């Protein structure tokens, strides 16, 4: 059997950061369902936040101000100690990335360039044009080659094995062969990213099914604040490819069909650079009120920024517009609409990235340390992945060095692998039943129509019913393509189980939370209610039922006040 001291699941930024910080004396491996460079992190565009103060407008910036912006942006649901921890570590993290080879864009004088981003008091987003994710992911991958990190690529984790509150390892499905393989590990770190594809309109990669979060949930680990789903204001109309916030950071305007910069009505001071929840709602409201184009989008106008800046700072955006919409932003405005983008919630972990299960850690978008609260600021997620990915690697190393090896894990893992294998045989053995992609489409429809930007009790209740129906239908799933080698159908069938659970947890949390906070907007409870709801939602699976509980928010310096921009 394959045995590792530390097993990292996910080869995106959080996973690679964890691999690089794990103790090299230990046996460490990374499992990823795609080659690490194909991870969704590669698509990040706009940048990564750190209060370097390089922008002439940001001389007074510091980590406390960054922490304050993060907490205010979160609509005060962030745990303040962890937000502070992340922001304190931001500057060294950026210099470390630079040292590892990230080719950041520069300002005159040779320092790292920084642009304004939404909800930030100072321009503090470091970037490499609009391909920041590409360069950071490639750089961390390069460092992993240098450090001889062991990779198992195109391996899908299907199950986390926990016994008596202790993590023993995982069960894997090898994409190339369809084989089921047990992997024993003393510590497991999940860095499995987001679940955007639970929605129809999303900026996320095709592969972002969020199965890691669902697998942890199934193993009994609580999920936190899952009802907080970020909708990005500006995705390219129809295809929903992201148009980075950096486009507004460089000065882009949002304009409705009357030619008006409508953000003046919603956030008169911050205008286009208000936080994402506010801008996304503003755009959707404009569209719903008949001020959009074709009732589906508004314009993001970059023309006044000029050809030179567009070519220099937003070449990727220009390429995307030309490629996918046949328009050149130098000459015409970009049609944009909101789309699902990011998960503020995730696997419940503490500031050491550890969970209630001994030896199980999580970092990156799949985790909820609780930095982003009810709304994440742009540029804070990449920072989250590198800071907490690193912490996860260090903490898992400490854990392994201080713990005893379990005795009978091999037997349990073999049994569990057999169980998974029998499941596959069952799906393969059937000649009829529910087809995977139909169920997937149905789920996406439900989530987009009923658990979107604007929510209310009726929609959420209906959504929940539909999800439970889908759960029943899923029991009749079958594999129609009778070859398990490189079978995306098999991958999807495995992951869909998680997607159903995630959808349920998101919807349940949203239904119960009778207030409006950050990205969670209830038409029937349209005010923030700190008295009853300044708390984290936890959903735990108990005997295949979702059980909901709550936990206090850590408030240090910053008392919750109304958010104004």
């Amino acid at each position, binding site marked *: 059997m394959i045995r590792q001291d530390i097993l990292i699941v996910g080869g995106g930024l959080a996973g690679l950061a964890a691999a690089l910080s794990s103790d090299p004396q230990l046996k460490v491996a990374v499992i990823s369902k795609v080659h690490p460079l194909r991870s969704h992190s590669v698509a990040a565009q706009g940048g990564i936040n750190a209060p370097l103060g390089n922008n002439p407008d940001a001389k007074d910036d510091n980590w406390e101000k960054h922490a304050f912006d993060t907490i205010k942006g979160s609509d005060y649901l962030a745990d303040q100690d962890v937000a502070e921890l992340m922001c304190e570590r931001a500057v060294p993290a950026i210099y470390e990335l630079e040292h590892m080879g990230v080719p950041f864009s520069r300002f005159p004088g040779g320092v790292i360039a920084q642009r304004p981003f939404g909800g930030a008091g100072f321009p503090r987003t470091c970037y490499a044009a609009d391909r920041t994710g590409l360069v950071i992911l490639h750089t961390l991958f390069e460092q992993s080659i240098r450090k001889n990190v062991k990779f198992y690529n195109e391996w899908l984790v299907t199950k986390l094995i926990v016994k008596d509150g202790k993590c023993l390892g995982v069960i894997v499905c090898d994409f190339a062969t369809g084989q089921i393989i047990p992997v024993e590990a003393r510590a497991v770190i999940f860095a499995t990213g987001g679940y955007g594809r639970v929605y129809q309109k999303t900026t996320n990669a*095709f592969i972002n099914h969020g199965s890691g979060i669902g697998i942890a949930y199934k193993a009994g680990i609580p999920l936190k604040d899952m009802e907080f789903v970020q909708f990005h204001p500006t995705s390219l109309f129809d295809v929903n490819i992201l148009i980075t916030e950096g486009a507004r950071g460089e000065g882009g305007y949002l304009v409705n069909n009357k030619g008006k910069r409508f953000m003046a009505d919603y956030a008169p001071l911050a205008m286009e650079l208000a936080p994402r929840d506010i801008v996304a709602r503003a755009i959707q409201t404009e569209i719903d009120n008949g001020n959009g184009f074709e009732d589906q989008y508004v314009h993001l106008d970059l023309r006044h920024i000029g050809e030179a800046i567009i070519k220099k700072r937003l070449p990727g955006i220009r390429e995307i517009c030309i490629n996918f919409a046949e328009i050149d932003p130098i000459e015409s405005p970009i049609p944009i609409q909101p789309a699902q983008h990011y998960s503020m919630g995730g696997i419940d972990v503490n500031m050491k990235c550890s969970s209630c299960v001994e030896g199980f850690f999580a970092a990156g978008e799949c985790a909820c340390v609780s930095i982003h609260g009810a709304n994440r600021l742009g540029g804070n997620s990449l920072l989250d992945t590198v800071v907490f990915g690193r912490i996860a690697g260090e903490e898992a190393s400490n854990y392994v060095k201080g713990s005893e090896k379990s005795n009978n894990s091999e037997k349990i893992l073999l049994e569990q692998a057999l169980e998974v294998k029998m499941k596959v045989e069952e799906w393969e053995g059937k000649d009829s039943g529910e087809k995977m992609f139909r169920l997937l489409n149905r789920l996406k429809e439900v989530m987009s129509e009923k658990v979107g930007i604007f929510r209310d009790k009726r929609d959420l209740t209906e959504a929940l019913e539909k999800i439970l129906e889908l759960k029943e239908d899923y029991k009749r799933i079958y594999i129609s393509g009778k070859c398990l080698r490189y079978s995306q159908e098999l991958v999807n069938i495995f992951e869909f189980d998680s997607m159903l659970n995630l959808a349920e947890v998101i919807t349940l949390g949203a239904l119960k939370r009778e207030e409006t906070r950050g990205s969670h907007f209830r038409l029937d409870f349209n005010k923030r209610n700190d008295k009853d709801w300044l708390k984290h939602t936890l959903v735990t699976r108990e005997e295949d039922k979702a059980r909901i509980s709550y936990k206090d928010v850590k408030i240090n310096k910053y008392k919750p006040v109304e958010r104004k921009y």
Partner: protein
Amino acid sequence: MKYLFRILRYDPLKDEHPFFQDFFYETDEKKSVIEALMDIRNEQDCTLAFRYSCREAICGSCAMVINGKYDLACRTMLNSLMSSLIVIEPLPNMEIQKDLVVNMDPFFEALNKIEPYIESEADFSEGGYRIEEKEMDKILQYVNCILCGSCYSACPVASRDENYLGPAALAKLYRFVKDPRDKRPFSIWSKVNTEGGVWGCDTVFKCNEVCPKSVRPADGIEALRRKLIVEKIKRIFKFKR
């Protein structure tokens, strides 16, 4: 619009030879080749295998040959092909693992050989580096590489000589050598002063032609050649003095 997709199929465990299979496909929407392939897979044959991830031409998963032309399937719109017959083949000169999925190992192994990482000094100053934008600009072209493997697949030298490092790896080496932070000694990177390295290139520029990200890897190879010669001359003069 109605399309006829002619897709190369091959399962090395079952089929003696690769063969083309036809699929009819109809859509009113604007779709990319990768979306059409997913629809065909979902609705007609779930055993059809291919790779994908980002759908926005940045992850490098989906390079293939579409109507005879190398491209990323996710950025190729059906209507842009101006044809109702769409022929899809996997990257040539690479071992087919199944249908459109090819073995990328040789490509990544070649990359590993050039030590594809910054070799900066062990310590770094607290305040970061000072590098002017014009210095960064010199490597940007190469930084845009998404390691999709198209150039490697199209390169006539790589296809006949498995020891040849290939365009992407060599261009990547140039990206590092040119980076002001990189301190690798000449004795290390000049290992590419061979037929398996920079002198293997036949300068037919297939790589520049097929690259979907305008990396122009052959520019990097030529620049490495020039740099090698210059460094050598410098060394001879130093030696004489």
